[in-house]
């Protein structure tokens, strides 16, 4: 039994089968991006153990093909196992060992990135200062106690907890929050457009608005606009139902037991111990055309705890690496008066560099040990 398993997992045939399946997966996952959008296709094909097929109109799913995690994991096991079986010490195979160790590092590094990397954006208008970046996909229900003059107390509830019927409690809040309704993506309107229904909340802004629930966005540059109807419930009962939406620019405001609260559904924030201030944004074009030549943000980095205060240029292919995060020039406002920086925290960012070097060295060794004698022989003919 063990012997049979050992043979299977160390066999090169398994490698070939897994590689063929990987090729199909990558091809399929690429084509699937057209209808699904890049993000969803990534999750369903590459960041998964199985690809599921869901018959139309049913709730159950059937796994029909191995996903990226499964194939990657099996390849990893196969690779390590095969090396225990075929490894021969000596100079001849050193290149092969290098290559495969590099591939292992690459796969593990990508898994680490998948699990640990956090991406967010920092949108600044010229002259604006922020000490947080915002998620591009995740939202949070922020309940802010604004009663104190000098500081606010923020409780942020991630959107993953905002499921209809859920009741969220937090020790920092004297009331619970019931989720009456949650739309992952939506549109709001001021009048009754076709497909829209009345919001019908009992308190706060937006009681007379119209709501349309929409499916997840699949187009890469567009994001979901979630909307929720929530009901804070104190010891003495409900405080009414409230509309919160990423669509609304202003938070909802209410009082409870003499304290003032603001409530809003906003992109999830990542706070930092320093602030970034946009001094200037440059958008240069080639003369006589609209082809962009350069985007550049000059920012002031202010980190009081370290007494650090300096100006930095961030432009294409020249990011700022700071505090374990990397700030990239990603986009800009149409009027060229605002800049969007991509913020990435990826503890494993160096692994592909090491992996690349290992594999390249291995391949060059392997190639040269065969090419040079071959050239010598052929040229002698």
């Amino acid at each position, binding site marked *: 039994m063990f012997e049979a398993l050992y043979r299977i997992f160390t066999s090169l045939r398994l490698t070939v089968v897994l590689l063929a399946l990987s*090729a199909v997966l990558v091809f399929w996952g690429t084509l699937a*991006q057209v209808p699904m959008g890049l993000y969803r296709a*990534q999750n369903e094909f590459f960041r998964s153990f199985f690809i599921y097929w869901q018959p139309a109109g049913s709730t159950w799913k059937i796994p029909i093909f191995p996903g990226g995690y499964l194939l990657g994991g099996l390849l990893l096991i196969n690779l390590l196992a095969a090396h225990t079986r075929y490894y021969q010490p000596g100079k001849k195979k050193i290149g092969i060992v290098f290559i495969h160790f590099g591939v292992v590092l690459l796969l593990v590094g990508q898994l680490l990135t998948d699990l640990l990397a956090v991406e967010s954006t920092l949108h600044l208008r010229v002259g604006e200062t922020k000490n947080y970046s915002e998620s591009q996909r995740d939202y949070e229900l922020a309940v802010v106690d604004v009663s104190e003059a000098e500081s606010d107390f923020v409780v942020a509830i991630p959107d993953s907890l905002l499921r209809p019927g859920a009741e969220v409690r937090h020790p920092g809040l004297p009331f619970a929050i019931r989720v009456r309704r949650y739309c992952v993506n939506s549109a709001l309107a001021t009048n009754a457009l076709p497909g829209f229904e009345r919001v019908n909340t009992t308190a706060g802004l937006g009681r007379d608005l119209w709501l349309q629930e929409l499916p997840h966005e699949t187009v890469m540059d567009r994001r979901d606009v979630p909307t929720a109807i929530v009901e804070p419930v104190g010891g003495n009962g409900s405080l009414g139902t409230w509309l919160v939406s990423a669509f609304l620019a202003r938070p909802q405001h209410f009082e409870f037991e003499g304290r003032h609260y603001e409530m809003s559904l906003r992109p999830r924030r990542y706070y930092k111990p320093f602030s970034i201030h946009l001094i200037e944004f440059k958008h240069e074009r080639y003369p*006589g055309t609209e082809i962009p030549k350069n985007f550049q943000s000059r920012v002031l980095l202010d980190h009081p705890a370290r007494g650090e205060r300096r100006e930095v240029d961030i432009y294409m*292919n020249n990011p700022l690496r700071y505090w374990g995060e990397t700030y990239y020039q990603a986009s800009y406002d149409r009027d060229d008066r605002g800049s969007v920086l991509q*913020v990435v925290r990826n503890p494993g960012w160096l692994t592909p560099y090491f992996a690349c070097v290992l594999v390249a060295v291995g391949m060059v060794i392997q190639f040269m040990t065969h090419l040079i004698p071959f050239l010598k022989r052929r040229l002698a003919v």
Partner: protein
Amino acid sequence: MKKWIPALVAAVMAAWVLAQFRPRPEPGFRLREFAQLPVLMNGRFQPFDSVARNSLLQIRTKQTVPVQHDGARHTFSAIEWLLEVMMQPEAADERPIFRVDNVELLSLLQLPEGRKYYTFAELRPSYDEINRQALRIEKIESAQRTAFERALMKLFNAVSLYQRLKVTLKPPASDDFAAEIAEYERVIPGGVAAVRARQAGKEFDETVFNRLLELMSGYDAMARFALPLVIPPAHGRAGDHDWQTLGAALMGAVHQTEWPPAIKWYARMVSGWRANKPEVFNSALAEYQQWLGEHYPRQVFKVQWEYRFNVFQPFYRALVIYILALVLALISLLTFALLPGFAETLRRSAFWLVALAVGIHTIGLIFRMALEGRPPVTNLYSSAVFIGWAAALLGLLLERFYRVGIGLIVASVVGFTTLVIAHHLSLGGDTMEMLRAVLDTNFWLATHVVTITLGYSAMFVAGLLAILFIILGVFTPLLNQPLGAVASPAGSANADPNRPSIGSVFTNMVYGIICFATLFSFTGTVLGGIWADQSWGRFWGWDPKENGALLIVIWCALILHARWAGLVRERGLMNLAIFGNVVTSFSWFGVNMLGIGLHSYGFMDAAFKWLVLFVASQLAFIALGLLPLRYWRSFQNAPQTAASADQPMATRPAEP
């Protein structure tokens, strides 16, 4: 056969290439000098010649225009056509230059069928209809457009380009432009005074006022629509951003005492051309050239070299020589059994021709790199040129090692095909376009892009070798012949039986090249990841182009492991290598057609049909390769070799 024949063949072709540079007198209008004047278009300095060629390619898909003149047929070169468009648009309107193939579009525009090209005069009545349709289609994403909509947008773009070129050097209603400019200069002081007086509510000279406004409305149209910036600032110190269209310069002249001098020289050239007075045209041209030489020597130098590059047409010439070499190499391969001496002469001639073509191809690449100040691959067009170059070089090297003509066929087929592809890609516009900000990094272009493209080249070479193996194996007895039989005039009978067969040589070549492709594809893919990490913060994002590159790496790994595991032998290796062509073409072109992701800037749709045909042809070759060996001419009479061909290959790469 004579030893000097190959050298002679190569020398004749070299002379044909060099003949382009022979000095030729130019009586009448000095068009070749005019063609070298610098203008700023698409964000870069280029000669009028490039504007002419690129525009004509976009509009007419050719670099020349046939014209009827005095009852005889002539051919306008691109610059002659552009001059007429800019200086005598009423005549240019009658030239059949707009290519319309789509039947639905023809019926919408009520144009007669059965012709390829139509004149602007014929399109003019439906001009509003074209605009109206284009306004609607513009909002549809290009991937979603129907064939009719694509054809209409193409025509709309061609007509817009043409209209914009027409107002480059003169306003629509102007005959003697130099005289008009002189009048404009005279009218300005009085006219400006009249405008001020009118604003102040005082009395003003209505004739002067109206004349000034009339002239300026023409110049305003030029300022708004003209495309190339033709007027350099009066002082060489000013930056590139200060170059203007002629219209903008004339509008600005109202407030200036010192006009940019180019205005008047261009006006004289227009008047000279329209009045058919070469001496007027030539003298203005000469004065302008001298002034440019003093004030803008750097720009003049650059565009003159670009002009020489245009005249040289290295890729076109290399293409012709590749075809010739291919013909010779094929004849050589087919005749070596009957006429070994003749075949060897042909093979050596083909070798010299491929070497010459690769040389010209190389010069062309370096020329482009110098003109752009960039690594060789910056867009889809240059990737085609580079893939062809690298593959041809690889083929030439193979031929150097195994003198059987196979390397030559590979070199010439890939060289020829990729240059044809490049030609079709060049119809999209300026191939030396400026790079968008995200691509503006020579380091990554030189490392990631070049390595990944070398990987493509190697995959195509391996795939083509595999196709040759199957064709030669099924239809000829060649694969079973020992190596050296082709090269030695004595024929196969005397060849050393210990020499490897040509079939096994094929196997070694394909295997070695797959290893090479693996090295470059993998390194290139990882470098791409590192670039992505450097510029937008993620090493890998499953973007279609990244996935395409990954597919090549996976496919290479699969081929190598399948061989090591003994799952495939000779034929299996060949079939996998042919499928490598499919994978590579998907990565190179296919993913661009998906129209999504960060790399989708190179989108094109007409190529889709060709991609499908290519994939189908490759699958047909694989089917042929699956034919049982007893049907292969190379193996049917030689069971012992057939058996040896089926022996598992040891894990030794590229070893004869």
